[in-house]
């Protein structure tokens, strides 16, 4: 296995050269890579392993997302973490990064509690580059750091979760993970141009503006039942920002309606123009529904106002468990 040897080399170089925290995490996930990697230009599929094990392992036993757990030893018995790893080499002629690392792109996708995926990208020879993530129509752009690393947490929109990461040169790394827990959550996402990002505002069970049940990016996450996460890096060239609202339907003790509004500030840049976005709404028992949006913003005399669209996202109807 040529690839295995290359990975070990990568691991060794890593060990010798760089910061311990990064090293432990990425070195180990890379070491446990099992999926075939097609190093030619284009898309690489990594399907299956997590699908099998992810279903069998209770996800609730996993540490919470924010935890930095110690890295497990390489040779260990039944594992609780089931990553899907993708490895590919960049298509450029370059072989070593500015820090002497072999040029390599490693995508690691790990299911975590709450039906989210933890995504880590290590693209050693693509530092400070825009990468675009697409999961079932939920799209956003990240920027890799000086070492070519990027990581984020993605709420899953369907039990059969597909994830695609597209790098600047057009190469795509993709992974598919079975996340049975996703059926316990209702989710709605809006992706839009980061320069005039549209926001999701959720009003849980009759809540009014500013009430506890008014949930948006920036509201107190612990007070309400649902939460809005914002994904994407606004410093990217051509920024693409996604907001996603999650309601834990599976554990809801209340029944009723969550109303969903899309809001956007009228700015001197977007006034009177069309803002392009995508709306993704999870559908129980099927793939999420994706609709492209083209919103005509109010004229420039309304600059500074907030455009409120109440009819774009369908209300969530929650039945008591």
């Amino acid at each position, binding site marked *: 296995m040529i690839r295995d040897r290359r990975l070990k080399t990568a691991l060794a170089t890593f060990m010798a050269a760089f910061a311990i925290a990064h090293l432990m995490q990425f070195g180990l996930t890379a070491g446990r890579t099992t999926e075939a990697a097609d190093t030619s230009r284009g898309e690489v599929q990594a399907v299956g392993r997590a699908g099998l094990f992810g279903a069998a392992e209770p996800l609730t036993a996993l540490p919470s997302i924010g935890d930095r757990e110690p890295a497990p030893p390489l040779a260990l018995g039944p594992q609780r973490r089931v990553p899907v790893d993708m490895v590919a080499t960049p298509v450029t002629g370059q072989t070593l990064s500015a820090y002497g690392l072999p040029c390599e792109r490693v995508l690691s996708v790990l299911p975590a509690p709450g039906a989210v995926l933890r995504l880590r990208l290590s693209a050693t020879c693509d530092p400070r580059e825009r990468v675009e993530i697409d999961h079932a129509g939920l799209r956003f752009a990240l920027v890799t750091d000086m070492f070519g690393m990027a990581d984020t947490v993605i709420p899953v929109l369907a039990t059969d979760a597909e994830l695609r990461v597209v790098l600047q040169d057009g190469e795509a790394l993709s992974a598919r993970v079975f996340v049975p827990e996703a059926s316990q959550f209702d989710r709605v996402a809006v992706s839009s141009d980061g320069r005039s990002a549209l926001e999701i505002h959720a009003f849980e069970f009759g809540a009014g503006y500013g009430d506890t049940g008014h949930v948006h990016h920036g509201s107190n996450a612990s007070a309400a039942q649902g939460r809005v996460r914002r994904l994407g890096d606004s410093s990217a060239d051509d920024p693409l920002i996604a907001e996603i609202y999650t309601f834990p339907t599976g554990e809801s003790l209340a029944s009723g309606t969550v109303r969903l509004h899309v809001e956007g500030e009228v700015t001197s840049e977007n006034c009177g123009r069309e803002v392009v976005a995508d709306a993704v709404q999870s559908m129980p028992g099927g793939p999420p529904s994706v609709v492209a949006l083209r919103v005509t913003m109010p004229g420039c005399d309304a600059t500074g106002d907030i455009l409120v669209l109440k*009819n*774009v996202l369908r209300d969530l109807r929650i039945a008591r468990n």
Partner: protein
Amino acid sequence: MSTFRFALLAASIGAPLWAAAEEVRLRSPDGSVVVSGQLTHFDGDFYRLETIYGPMTLDAARVACHGTSCPDPAEFAPEIRLSGPPALGALLMPALIEGYAARIGHAAERVIADDRHFTYVLTDGTSGHPSIRFRFRLTGSDEAFADLLAGEADIALSAREIRRSEVALAREAGLGTLDAPGRSRVLALDGIVAITGAGNPVRQITLRDLARVFSGEIVSWAALGGPDVPIGLHLAEEETAVTQSFGARILGRYGAAPASEIVRHSSLAGLTDAISQDPAAIGITAFSETGSAQIMSLVGPCGFPSVPGPQTLKTEDYPLTAPLFAYLPAKRLPRPGRDFLEYVQSPQADLVVRRAGFVDQRLETIPLDRQGLRIANAVREAGDGIGLSDLRAMVERLFGAERLTVTFRFEEGSSELDAQSRSNVPLLASLIRRGNFDGSSILFAGFSDGIGNVEQNRRLSQRRAEAVRDAVLGDVSAQGVTVETAGFGEALPMACDAVEWGQRINRRVEVWVR
């Protein structure tokens, strides 16, 4: 003579699209027909020209268009304009359009002018060409019919049936007879419900008390068995179909006028949000828009609570049903529009309707053992005219069979089927035609109210059962099924005969299958 065959198809078409464009020339392949004029409309199937002879409509498949203003058939996507209330226009139809797009593998794009005006564009992923556009205007049911009459909508979405006056106006406008079969579709079932804030201990109310509450005669929850707290009254604005229907069907019946201190809301969503936060509040809304409020059951003077729910809306055992309609004028929709309407009636669409939080029309069966309360009530009510032997004969016929949710009920004081029941006729007929009941026996079981002579009621219920059977089986060949009718008279009441709505619920034809 071919000129006349070409023209005069599809008479009425909507607003001009190619205003003030250059003249075009439409020419048949053999050159025998050439017509020049201003192109005013193209729907993918037909050209409409303004010519020196007046307006002409020509079949696009049989003429070629010459001129710079000719539409490119490959790029062309017909537009269907829909007007209607938010429940239908913002929730149900968009869900159905997205479901349809997924079904045919097209991408859906929503172009938003503002919150009440938007257009869905479906695009074929392989060719990149748009296939159809749905232009929405969110308004009330009244306005939706007005748009249809003014030629500003191709489909009116409505939370109520069309009024006689609107039918007459539509006929004058050349839109055909809109209350005729085939001119409307029931998109989903719905009902009018009373709601209170969460935590209110009063869970049921009589229709009479509901009228008393909203006319200001009852002002405290104490009169309804709750704490001595003033009742807060909420209604949607008078233009809302639900409010109109409540006024006609409940306040009107009891000769009550709405109280002056009612809080009015511009939308049902706003109404339910206000009520859900206030336990002392009561309001009238649609079952499809109860938000986070608490739903009240209706009760008659002799018990029999009637709980609004998907099943009681399907069976119309809940008295205040109010199906959601699409009205289609007598003009030909372009092909993709007809395909979409076909999808709307499909089982796949039923699933979308349910997921969008509405009650679909899919038939369900209710086994006899889940109807214990009904049977118990029948036994309790027996003795006066209906004897034990009648009950035994009825149970014998129904034993081992299952009731279908489809039930036939009649307009108030009339032998005409009500709107939902009329829509049930083709629904049941098509299931029988498709062989869904092959090998089974279908029993049309007629029931009456308890007013008048027992024997007469039995005969009346028998006649009703036969009439419904004839309506359903009219042109259906049903060799695979055994069809029977029975008239059980007043044997199995579902509501109190002491009140008018109870009598109406009791006059019915049920369908049982074994």
